[in-house]
């Protein structure tokens, strides 16, 4: 069941959903809330000619963040914006910090905006679920599938968050038979 704007506001008022900075009135639609683009992005580099590289995620020594650091460059989006070229993958973040309190019966999905999708901008790569208990700035995996570069500026409405009520409380949010037995 998708939460409406009224239910989202109530959840925010009751600190069951935390969004910081708080969204303004224009960020709401009937069943979603818009989030904006942070100034930090990481652009994945193109491979160099004559050099064969591959990622091995199941290797015992695989370090995803280290790998990303090696194959990307960090950019602070300048005032004139960042030009996302076709077929380039960048990691980006929402400006807003989001916390879905773990005992709350809410999870969310991050989805694109049709206003940007029509030019080919995808904001995630098959990983849209924001699980109950998540906290942090949402990491976006953005690709320009269009034919023309897209200029991205800090603060643009980049994605929308759709909140869904779960059926029941997740086990980790329920003080069951294992509570009080640690430490």
């Amino acid at each position: 069941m998708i939460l409406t704007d009224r239910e989202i506001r109530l959840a925010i008022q009751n600190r069951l959903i935390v969004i910081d900075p708080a969204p303004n009135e224009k960020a709401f639609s009937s069943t979603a809330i818009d989030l904006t683009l942070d100034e930090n992005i990481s652009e994945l580099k193109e491979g160099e000619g004559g050099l064969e590289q591959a990622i091995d995620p199941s290797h015992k020594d695989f370090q995803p963040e280290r790998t990303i650091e090696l194959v990307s460059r960090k950019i602070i989006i300048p005032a004139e914006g960042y030009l996302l070229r076709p077929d380039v993958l960048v990691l980006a973040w929402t400006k807003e910090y989001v916390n879905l309190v773990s005992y709350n019966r809410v999870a969310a999905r991050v989805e694109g905006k049709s206003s940007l999708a029509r030019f080919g901008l995808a904001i995630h790569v098959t990983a849209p679920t924001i699980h109950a208990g998540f906290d942090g700035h949402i990491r976006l995996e953005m690709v320009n599938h269009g034919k023309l570069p897209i200029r991205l500026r800090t603060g643009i409405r980049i994605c929308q968050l759709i909140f869904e009520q779960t059926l029941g409380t997740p086990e980790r949010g329920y003080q069951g038979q294992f509570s009080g037995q640690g430490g």
Partner: protein
Amino acid sequence: MRVRIEEIGTGQHPSEKVVKVETIEGPEQLLVDKRSIRERSLDIGFPVGQKNGHLLVELPRETFSGLWRVWVDEQMVVG
């Protein structure tokens, strides 16, 4: 409740930290927001299983190896 962690690095965003959790099958690493870290521990809600002095806990984010739930020694869980 919280699980003890060790900070081992930073993420791509200034708000991100890479942390390590010692599980009974070896260390697992995950990326978290630095606001999540308090006194070298992370909120895990309540344990979701118990066996032979070990607790099954769900981490707040997926580990680099793709796990959400890991078995840890009881001593790793506090609060």
